[in-house]
């Protein structure tokens, strides 16, 4: 299970994507492509469809037109979604919560203990998640990205509730993911401390009023 991940074949191709929410057209004919190691930053003011685009990429919201194609090394789901809902049960301990997601997502990543160490809450493994602060919950949520390898990370405001150290940690995690050949689409208002290795593009949504 500790074999280094091979994301070399992973691709995200989006063509002609059109998404409508109710009567409102959020974006039309959106097209982009991500190759291993590349990151797309989504910008735009509130309500321009950043979160909706992420949900569309995740296959939760149906697009009115266009296609999203995610190819990866195997047949399993290829993406991690991280948004404001963490899927963490207050009455389970941090380790139990993470262990649950590890098994549900395929046990392809690092162990629970290692992941908790990596996000800096290794000492809280036995604590019920209901006692964690929101920043610690966010870190626990980030640990979920590590316990199973998936080439595409869809992150919605990942730095929310994180302190300065947490932001640096987030940057390191994303950089490590890029180095391993992973891809990420990140909706954020903050400047993320990412290493400048190239392969970072920015997409601004909703520039037309």
């Amino acid at each position: 299970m500790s074999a280094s991940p091979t994301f070399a074949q992973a691709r995200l191709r989006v063509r002609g994507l059109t998404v409508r929410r109710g009567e409102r057209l959020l974006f039309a004919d959106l097209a982009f492509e991500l190759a291993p190691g590349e990151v797309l930053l989504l910008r735009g003011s509130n309500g321009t469809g950043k979160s909706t685009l992420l949900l569309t990429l995740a296959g939760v919201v149906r697009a009115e037109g266009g296609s999203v194609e995610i190819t990866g090394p195997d047949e399993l789901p290829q993406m991690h979604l991280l948004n404001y809902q963490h899927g963490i049960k207050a009455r389970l301990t941090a380790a139990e919560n993470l262990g649950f997601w590890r098994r549900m997502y395929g046990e392809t990543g690092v162990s629970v203990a290692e992941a908790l160490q990596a996000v800096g809450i290794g000492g809280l493994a036995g604590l019920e998640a209901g006692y964690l602060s929101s920043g610690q919950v966010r870190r626990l949520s980030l640990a979920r990205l590590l316990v199973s390898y998936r080439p595409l990370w869809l992150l919605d405001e990942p730095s929310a509730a994180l302190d300065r150290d947490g932001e640096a940690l987030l940057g390191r995690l994303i950089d490590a993911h890029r180095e391993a050949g992973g891809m990420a689409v990140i909706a954020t208002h903050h400047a993320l401390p990412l290493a400048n290795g190239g392969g970072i593009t920015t997409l601004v949504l909703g520039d037309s009023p």
Partner: protein
Amino acid sequence: MRAFQTLIGRDLRLAVRVGGEAMTLVLFFIMVAVIVPFAIGPDRPQLMRLAPGIVWIAAFLSMLLGLDRLFRSDDEDGSLLLLRHSVLPLEAVVAAKVIAHWLVTAVPLLLATPVLALLLSMSWAQWVGTVLALLAGTPALTSFGALGAAVTVGLRRGGLIAPVLILPLAIPVMIFGVGMLDPLAGSGALLFLVALSLLVTVFSPFAAALALRAAGE
């Protein structure tokens, strides 16, 4: 398969830790049986005749009351959204949750039936028959419940809408469940009940998963 068991295990563990919920249903179940003798008077033969029907009404109502919780907490904390990207298809996720829900809600009722048998002065044979009928019929109730719960998961205060929605579907379960205890009915009712349970248990995860996908939009 491992993920399937993990999901069932988590739901059981949560039910034990959070407690209360299963207990409430069992208390409700017993409460109905406690008040009925007061309502119809201490007439033992009559009570005995009505006992299977009363047990079914009590079980039916407490199962219906509990089903709203099937998907709600997972929907509210985002687990349901994340489970859609797990290694299990959503249909299997629903099936696992239905099994866990049945274990948490129906099994305690079955364990509480001896109390009801005493309160309603049921005979030994009646009690065995009732337990058998509940065992055969409650999976169908839970599975129908999954449909109702999936359709109403998006409604913040859906509380009683799901039970009302599935009431017409669940009534046949009640009819055959009580019919089974009729001495003239023979084994036909039990077979119908088992067939109904098997059929619904197999098909409801697909329908419920469809409803959950639609609710996610």
